[in-house]
């Protein structure tokens, strides 16, 4: 049974215990992919905080279309993990009510393209309850959604509209690209006293693997992660495009260009100084995302860089992005998604000047 409000302290204590449980400390779970890391994080959250509940379409019996909640209803009970009717606004709105009452709901939206019916709840309600009650009522909740293309999916299943969420004051927007970050950021999101939109890169779910610590840990929401330090140029990206960005960095390193790779990880609040520090050093930057160019989040980053580091800039900040089109169906996906080649070319152009 989830408990409300006053049991917070007890929960904290329990978590603290988990943190330090000696048998677990330091051991690593080998070769965990991003999907498994998320599944493990949700399991840990449910296990360590009675206030955590999960709700979403098909997340119980089947464990979700991507199996991120696999086994959790069985393990934690159908009073903690709820299948819901097909109604995204209802899912988010109900979660908000639960959060106000003291629970820590984690809602799943089946695909980002189906989050739009809930956009009103997110921008007009979830994001505002703290502000409109001057901190009296709050929304400690997480809205998870798989996003991005690359799997030849049907219409609406490849969306990458992070910009429309990053523009909403009152929420945070997080997007991991590694299993380690996935676990740590998701646990941080569940702990966060404010609402977090948590984007999960579909095409990385099973594509990246690494060992991750078998303990309760969090990764701070906010700071960018310098994934690879370098001197000649900064590549800035997040989420699913990190794969192509890493490949581009490898290709550039092969010809002895020293590349700094930044995984933004948190789009809101944006760690401007983290990005500026890098570009002040390298003097050149390329931002990569799969959303369309116009009013994409890359604009914010390029604007930020020129605002804060214009005099370090040796060349314009280039953006390698999706085109100003609807994300296409399978046969045209290759025409749309930014390729390693496009990133490398943009880097060359940036370096040439």
């Amino acid at each position, binding site marked *: *049974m*989830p*408990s*409300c409000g006053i049991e917070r302290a007890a929960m904290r204590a329990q978590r603290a215990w988990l943190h330090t449980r000696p048998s677990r400390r330091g051991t690593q779970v080998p070769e965990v992919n991003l999907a498994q890391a998320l599944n493990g994080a949700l399991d840990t959250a449910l296990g360590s905080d009675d206030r955590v*509940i999960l709700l979403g379409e098909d997340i119980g019996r089947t464990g979700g279309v991507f199996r991120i909640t696999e086994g959790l209803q069985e393990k934690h009970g159908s*009073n903690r993990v*709820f299948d*819901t*009717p097909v*109604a995204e*606004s*209802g899912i988010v*709105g*109900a*979660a*908000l*009510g*639960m*959060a*106000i*009452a*003291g*629970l820590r*709901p984690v809602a799943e939206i089946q695909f980002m393209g189906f989050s739009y*019916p809930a956009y*009103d*709840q997110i921008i*007009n*309600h979830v994001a505002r*309850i*703290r*502000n*409109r*009650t*001057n*901190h*009296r*009522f*709050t929304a400690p909740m997480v809205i998870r959604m798989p996003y991005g293309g690359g799997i030849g999916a049907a219409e609406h299943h490849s969306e990458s509209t992070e910009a429309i969420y990053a523009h909403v*004051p*009152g929420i*945070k927007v997080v997007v991991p690209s590694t299993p380690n970050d996935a676990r740590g950021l998701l646990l941080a999101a569940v702990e966060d*006293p*404010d609402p977090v939109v948590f984007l999960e890169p579909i095409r990385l779910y099973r594509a990246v693997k690494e060992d991750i610590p078998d303990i309760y840990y969090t990764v701070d929401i*906010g700071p960018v992660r310098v994934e690879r330090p370098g001197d000649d140029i900064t590549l800035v990206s997040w989420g699913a495009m990190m794969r192509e960005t890493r490949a581009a960095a490898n290709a550039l390193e092969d010809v002895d260009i020293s590349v700094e790779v930044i995984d933004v990880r948190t789009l*809101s*609040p*944006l*760690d*401007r*100084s983290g990005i500026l520090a890098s570009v002040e050093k390298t003097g050149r930057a390329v931002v990569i995302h799969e959303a369309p160019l116009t009013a994409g989040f890359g604009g914010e980053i390029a604007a930020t860089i020129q605002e804060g580091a214009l005099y370090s800039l040796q060349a314009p900040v280039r953006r390698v992005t999706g085109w100003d089109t609807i994300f296409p169906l399978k046969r045209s996906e290759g025409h749309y998604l930014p390729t390693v080649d496009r990133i490398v070319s943009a880097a060359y152009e940036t370096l040439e000047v």
Partner: protein
Amino acid sequence: MSSRKSGLGRGLDALIPTGGPTSVPVTRQTDTDERRVMFSLINPDGSVRDRLPITLDEMKALYADMVEARAYDSKSIAMQRQGRLATYAPFRGQEAAQVGAAAGLENDDWVSGTYRDAALNWRAGFPWELLILGRTGDERGGEVPEGINVLPPSITVGGHMIHAVGLAWAEKLSGSNRIALTSFGDGATSEGDFHEAMNFAAVYQTPTVFFCQNNGFAISYPTSEQTRSESIAVKADAYGMPGIRVDGNDVVAVLVAVREAAVLARSGSGPSLIEAVTYRMGPHTTADDPARYREADEGEEWEEKDPLSRVQKLLERHGTWTEQWQAGLEEQASQRIERAVEWAESVPEPTFEEMLNRMYAEPTAPLLEQLDEGGQADE
């Protein structure tokens, strides 16, 4: 600050026995008539249709609350005209619905209502002071005191109902006895969010009371055009939920309907829908001109059904109402409201820093930068 709940609703004394059977629908009938025919107890002339299941003191308290609510409404309109309040949405005519609904709840039940629900919110514990502060255009008006589980009035139409589902669901999961009431208008029933909220509440059997004040209009659009269903109450069928139609200008009928729905909810029988049929006697807001869309005589007809005057007549018949008592009630109400206004208007101007600090538990890095930048600009 105004006092909370007056401990209403425990007695079942006959105030004015009519001799007929006590047919208060304490258990819901499966008969669909309830959703179409209006349940009422007090007639506009103050006569009663049935034994009233409340005491005389309770009746008087309900009346006093309605008088106070009306005083607040009039004061707010006046203040808005003087430019002391932002646009205001009057509830004149809906006092019985709002006071009756709140009186059917327990102290710590959740309430999620609208911009027009000041009387409901107040009666459920939201102090006049903060309601007024909010209407001056100040977010701090939404900071209800600890222990009062009333959300600030929702300005968007429709989006707030589902919150009462989530709130009630959480209470159900944590095994508490609390329920949630959401109040909304006839117009709100057209929003998709109404549907999703009703469905979720039914599916999870959350202890939620859906309380619709059908006041005849959504701004200029009459309820008769808003939907072609026979009533709002009948929509409950679509969710396998009990529905009832009550005379929203009859404070006791509303109280009984809400109390009964609350009993159902608290006992694990899930949500219900109440349609309180009433009339918005004033404009939609102080910025609205009803002459553009309704005839004046429509209003006059409803004057006769006024929620206050029928209770006044009832008490008069009973020999309880006197002009002096009335004057006393008005005087007290006015004093309380004046004090609340004074307090609200004495609240210092909100600062730039407060605006930014209210966004998150801790200001984020971008906000810290902006606090810096804006702080300088402010100097």
